[in-house]
């Protein structure tokens, strides 16, 4: 068990704290003032000033993040009707204490950064500027943004990954609907604002599932990178496109692959097309391995209820030194590589390598300012040089209730890519809409064009959306 959980262990959360108040059960009855006050008192008594170590995935971000490389991602829900602002503010107020592990600020320790609890109000702001902008020093590192019929949440990756953030957004939406006097089905599974956070939600799941003395995964060679010129600051621009889920699903099914495998293959084909159009000199200069980083939600592989980061990557690839790939060959390669790499034992090996590095006696006892320099230069030199692109597929959202009729679609915007990667892609489905968002820091939209052309060649219509 983690040593940092020693603090949290002392909190002794009691999930039965509201047993005496059955009338306040959510949904169905309003949260009464007395219940909220009691809950607040209990939370304050139990963890007035807790702190947490950064989880394994978060440790790199404080050292490398900047105004451009913000490590902030966004999840948006576009409703069919305009947001009613007073119920939304009420909903935010109601969920204030449900996610104490998010109400933290990164602080510098002597050896590592850590997260210190600050019971400040969640920031709700108009959504009028660039998405995924950096958090300023002293701010909580997540925010809620509102515009017209769109409610968004932005989280720093220091706090959590897409799955954790989505649970927060889900709770916010359901509480909002509740505040709008819309009845919430009783069987709906979500983190109710009335529940006391579980101890497992705080945990660093990487450390929990760490196994000592596993062999190291093999190193991978560097890969192809897009040759485009960077935008002037601010660089980050987003293109959002909608494709019918049934059409993608049909194409994927025809090839016996998942939607993620299908989209990764399309991405690889687009990169191959871009490579083929390069001049002879550029081709000679470029690397011939095309590798895509695909984040995997480890909660589906390892039992965990953590609300912090718990994902790793698989990296399907094609190697153009072996010749040109057709879509069928790419689909087959990606499918088998992903099947292989998502194996629990292989995931254990990667967790073991990552956590071992942070537990290295020399590294962990190095003062933070030196450690930050090492992490910064390691990231600069090796960081994303092994990948040509990133596709994050958060899957398909389904509330399985009447609430689905109130929502038009969801959008996931991944964090701004770095100067090596240049473009990344987020995918999120709802109903029959699969929303792709390309975050791009270059002055070229060639990759997006190639990607959409490849889809249209397969008779999958693409609609660019005004986000």
């Amino acid at each position, binding site marked *: 068990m983690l040593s940092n959980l020693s603090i949290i262990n002392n909190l002794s959360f009691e999930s039965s704290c509201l047993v005496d108040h059955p009338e306040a059960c959510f949904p169905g009855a309003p949260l009464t003032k007395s219940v909220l006050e009691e809950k607040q008192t209990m939370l304050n008594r139990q963890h007035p000033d807790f702190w947490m170590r950064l989880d394994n995935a978060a440790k790199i971000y404080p050292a490398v993040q900047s105004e451009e490389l913000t490590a902030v991602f966004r999840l948006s829900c576009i409703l069919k009707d305009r947001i009613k602002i007073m119920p939304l503010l009420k909903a935010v107020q109601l969920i204030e204490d449900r996610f104490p592990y998010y109400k933290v600020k990164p602080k510098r320790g002597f050896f590592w950064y*850590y997260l210190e609890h600050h019971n400040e109000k969640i920031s709700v702001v108009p959504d009028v500027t660039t998405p995924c902008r950096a958090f300023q020093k002293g701010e909580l590192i997540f925010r809620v943004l509102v515009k017209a019929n769109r409610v968004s949440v932005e989280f720093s990756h220091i706090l959590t990954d897409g799955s954790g953030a989505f649970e927060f957004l889900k709770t916010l939406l359901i509480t909002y609907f509740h505040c709008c006097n819309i009845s919430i089905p009783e069987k709906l599974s979500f983190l109710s604002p009335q529940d006391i956070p579980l101890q497992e939600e705080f945990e660093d799941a990487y450390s929990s599932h760490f196994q000592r003395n596993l062999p190291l995964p093999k190193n991978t060679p560097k890969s192809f990178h897009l040759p485009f010129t960077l935008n002037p600051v601010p660089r980050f621009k987003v293109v959002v496109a909608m494709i019918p889920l049934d059409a993608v699903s049909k194409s994927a099914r025809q090839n016996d692959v998942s939607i993620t495998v299908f989209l990764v293959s399309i991405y690889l084909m687009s990169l191959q097309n871009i490579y083929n159009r390069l001049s002879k000199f550029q081709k000679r200069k470029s690397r011939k391995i095309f590798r895509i980083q695909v984040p995997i939600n480890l909660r589906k592989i390892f039992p965990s209820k953590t609300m912090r980061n718990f994902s790793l990557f698989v990296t399907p690839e094609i190697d153009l030194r072996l010749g040109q790939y057709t879509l069928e060959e790419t689909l087959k390669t990606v499918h088998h590589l992903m099947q292989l790499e998502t194996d629990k034992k292989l995931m254990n090996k990667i967790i073991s390598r990552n956590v071992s590095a942070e537990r290295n006696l020399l590294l962990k006892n190095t003062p933070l300012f030196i450690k930050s320099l090492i992490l910064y230069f390691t990231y600069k030199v090796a960081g994303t040089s092994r990948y040509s692109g990133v596709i994050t597929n958060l899957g398909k959202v389904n509330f399985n209730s009447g609430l689905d009729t109130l929502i038009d679609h969801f959008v996931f915007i991944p964090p701004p890519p770095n100067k090596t990667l240049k473009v990344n892609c987020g995918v999120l489905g709802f109903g029959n809409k699969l929303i792709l968002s390309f975050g791009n820091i270059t002055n070229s939209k060639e990759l997006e064009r190639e990607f959409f052309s490849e889809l249209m060649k397969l008779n999958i219509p693409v609609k660019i959306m005004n986000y």
Partner: protein
Amino acid sequence: MLLCKTCGVELDEGLDHCPLCGRSVHDDKKTLNAPLPASIFNKKTTAAGELYLLQRITWQVTAVLLLSGIIATLIIDAWVHKRITWSVFPISVCTILLSYAAVLALIRTGLVLQLIIGWIISTGVLIGFHYIFQDTGWMLRLAIPILFITNLMTMVLIFLMRSVGTKGLNVFAFSLFMIAIYCICLEGLISLYTRNQFFIQWSIIVTACLLPVTASLLFIHFRIKRNKHLEKIFHT
């Protein structure tokens, strides 16, 4: 249905302003491009404006007082000695203070840059006085190095203050530490001027007294800070 023209959200009946952006619901299209009203966005701007006004008033009062001091000492010295003698000291000090006050009040830039500009002007003033009043060389060999060290120490202190998140006893600790260093530099510079060698004596005693106090203050600061334990600072 009431809509906010900035955020596009639906507002409850009876709301005059959007609780998100602060814009009045009665704003017409013509005023949409106008700056947002006093709200969560421009509170800082308003506060900065008030601060600037306060700085200007303080500068005007300070300038009147310092100029009066310069003129008074100049007249008295010239009247009594028929030439400029001792008044060169208060005149130099007042002119340096005047230049810093002017820079801090009138130039709207970062504090460190203001200090650098103030130091350049003051150094220029001292060099100018050196040639005008033909002093014994203390301006060049003593005043200018002390001025440089004072600026440098102040800037280091500002950097330290800004780099710490929680300000408490650590502010006093840093200040005492900088005073100790400053005393060593000051005594060294004076000894260089008077004896032509770097010699420190009393400043070592000052430093020896201040360093344990500094360490104690830092220790207390980290002990009483929020959760009263040092593990979070020093965890590995």
